[in-house]
């Protein structure tokens, strides 16, 4: 399995957005392969790249980065649990910020808190990476003992890849 077997797409409403207004961004991760795939959504520390999976957002305008996650505050991230894993069937998609029952996913703060103070054309992109060097780079820094072994086993089943989303262009007026 490689990066071509999963895709990540960003969507927004087609109409132009207003200055100072939030821009609703919908994220969709889809399994393009012929087999089921284990994947994890946006968990505590994913956006800061403190722990895997990494979901790394960026907002640019005229080639300049106008919003991206700041350096991490501290590395105290919550545990990764079996409930946070989602098995995607062939062709199935999910929103990694919208948790299924039992999962603890978080929004991409860079996207959800962005409000442009000026009009213009903004480009949204997101990179998903599961290419950790060690499986322990997925684990939380507290409360992890309870499911540690089972989670490590499940991590091994997540395909290792880095995929980049489409560049979503949003007009702000």
């Amino acid at each position, binding site marked *: 399995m490689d990066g071509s077997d999963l895709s990540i797409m960003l969507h927004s409403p087609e109409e132009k957005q207003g200055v100072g207004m939030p821009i609703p961004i919908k994220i969709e991760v889809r399994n393009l392969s012929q087999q089921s795939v284990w994947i994890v959504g946006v968990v505590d520390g994913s956006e800061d790249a403190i722990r895997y999976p990494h979901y790394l957002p960026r907002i640019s305008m005229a080639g300049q980065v106008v919003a991206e996650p700041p350096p991490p505050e501290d590395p105290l991230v919550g545990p990764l649990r079996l409930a946070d894993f989602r098995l995607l069937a062939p062709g199935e998609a999910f929103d990694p910020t919208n948790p299924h029952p039992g999962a603890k996913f978080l929004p991409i703060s860079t996207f959800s*808190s962005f409000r442009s103070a000026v009009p213009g054309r903004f480009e949204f992109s997101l990179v998903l990476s599961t290419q950790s060097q060690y499986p322990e780079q997925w684990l939380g820094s507290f409360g992890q003992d309870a499911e540690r072994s089972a989670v490590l086993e499940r991590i091994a089943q997540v395909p290792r890849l880095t995929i980049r989303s489409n560049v979503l262009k949003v007009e702000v007026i």
Partner: protein
Amino acid sequence: MTYDPTYQEGTSVAFPELAMKGMAPPEEVENGTDSDGLAAAGEQIDSRIALSERGVSGLYRGTSGDFQLELRVDVDGSRPMNRLSGDLFRVTGATTTYFGSFIVNSPTVTRTASSVTIEGLGEYTWSTIAPQVKVTMSPAAPATIQFSTTSGSPGSIYICPFVSSYFRSVQWEQDSVVDTVPFVSYNTGSLPQPPNSLSRELTVSKAYAEAGIGLQTAGLTNIVDTSASGTDTRWSASELHAAMVSNFSLWEDVPQWKVYLIVATSYERDDVRGIMYDQQGLQRQGCAVFYDAIQGTDAARQRAQLRTYVHELGHCFNLLHSWQKDLADPPAPLGPNGGLGDLSWMNYVQNYQPPPPAPGGEAAYWANFPFQFTDSEIIHLRHAFYRNITFGGNAFGVGAAEIDPEVVRDRTEDNSGLKLELRSKDVYAYGEPVVVEIKLSTTDLRGKRVHSYLHPDDEMVQIAIRKPSGSTVLYRPMIEHCVDEVKTITLTSEHPAIYDSAYIGYGREGQYFAETGHYQLRAIYIAQDGSRVVSPTLTLQVRSPYTATDEEVGELFMGDEQGQLLKLLGSDSEALKHGNEAFDLVLDKHSEHPLAVYARLVKGINAQRTFKKLAVDKVVKVREAKPRESVALLSSVVDDSTAEKGVDNITLNLAMRRLARAHKETGDLERAEATIDRMVEVFEHKQLKPYIVQQITADAEAEKAELNEA
């Protein structure tokens, strides 16, 4: 005996108003200020001011019988949370041990010009029959706390003088690495802030003082010289922990209201601003901020520095990030929008997102943040159960802990002059008898007289065992030994410790180490003056069997009868016939297996002695000793153990002395004496402390003298 500090016989008072007359004035406590000009813990309150003016909130402390109560009243004053809470400690001899905590949410408050009554039903960390709490306060008198049953029967009463307007007082030591500049203060009016937030000069201490927590700078401030590390200015969590242990002048590896912060250069990972790194052993005693990531003198950076310092210390208080609170054990409720909407020191500025359509992000955070903790965080800071908040208490993220047996509690104060330690192997095979070594030593340079009953079977030392499943049990001996005779010894600087070893694998509840996994053990020594000296936690592992043979042999050691035989060091009893058969099978089929040494030990010691049986005709029949069989078995035990793969030292000592006796019983006195001499040589080569070798040598001489008796 079950103790309940809310219902002790002989301490309840039916008419507490009468008991208040003639009481001493409120206890005077230390009064000083820290560098911020804050009143330190222990303001002297003018009791002539009517209660309705001065308010009643704060910390009170009193005793009843063996118990000391720290009561926190939080019904008026700055940001009242309308709570009562308390921590109870048991004082025995020179030791003070935490017992439990309680909280009363939303108590009923009744005020008159001359009294305030606060009452409600408490929630407790233990099961109590007197859960109702009533606090009564009058001018010029301490607070009276009356516990009672839900039907109104009076329980214990505590008279508690006022101690402090701070709900908790903490000593905070801060060190910094050379070439870093620690944060001092920030004026909240320097940059736009919410209209309802007062402009004020905020230090880290003042931020916590506003939450009702007295954070006093204490200890020795060090500038840490890192020249030896060269260009490596990054710190790992392990290095930070080691630095804390060596530099924190208030350091003790016990739960205490003392915390450490180091201003370091940078973390092993780029751009991390801070970390609560202490997640090993007794956790949450220290944190770090990283100067390279947070430095700057402009207002925005100073504001961010203040936040980082307060934030990381918040983790030491066991506060999680705003969006993580439901991950605590037990889970705590999240604030708005899954906690992301919290305006708190514990949120990340970039993560701030109130419920839509309100804006989020860093600008919105600072525009709305009043430089305070949320209500739920203040309730935690002021009223969390002791072990859930004290530094070195529960692990990070663990809330009110499961209830340990009453005997095993964190020490809060130990003036006994004694130290207790447990030692064992790190890893035991499945089925391997778990033998622990118990050491009692003196910390008192003047010497200390102690009783020498260290073996838990004498029940003057208790051992608590937390199993891999999480349940905690107390080792209870199969047979109680009543020690009527007082056997004491004086521990001195020349002879500072006594030792014993104990097989604790089997007791009154059966096998204690039947599960594979990690166990935690703590021992308690009950001194003659009632002091209860608690050992540090010992962790050991029972590993899963590697092979089918390991599993088979392990199972042959796991039966009840086998446990009893190990405890008794052998027996001819018919009731233990199957246990003996299991050990015979080990020796027949698995004679080379490492665990076979224990079967030989049990059988060898049993063969060395005679065995009396009461037959059905009520006549005692004596099975004669079988010394040649004993010699064969115990010689093998000694050979294995002197090669470092058999039994522990104290058991080896026992085995060699029994072997010597067995030799004598075969008529070979020369071989018996040679065995004793060999015993001394073996222990001389083990690099034991000189006074221990001297003791062994003296015991050997006594043994030889006994062997030579006709």
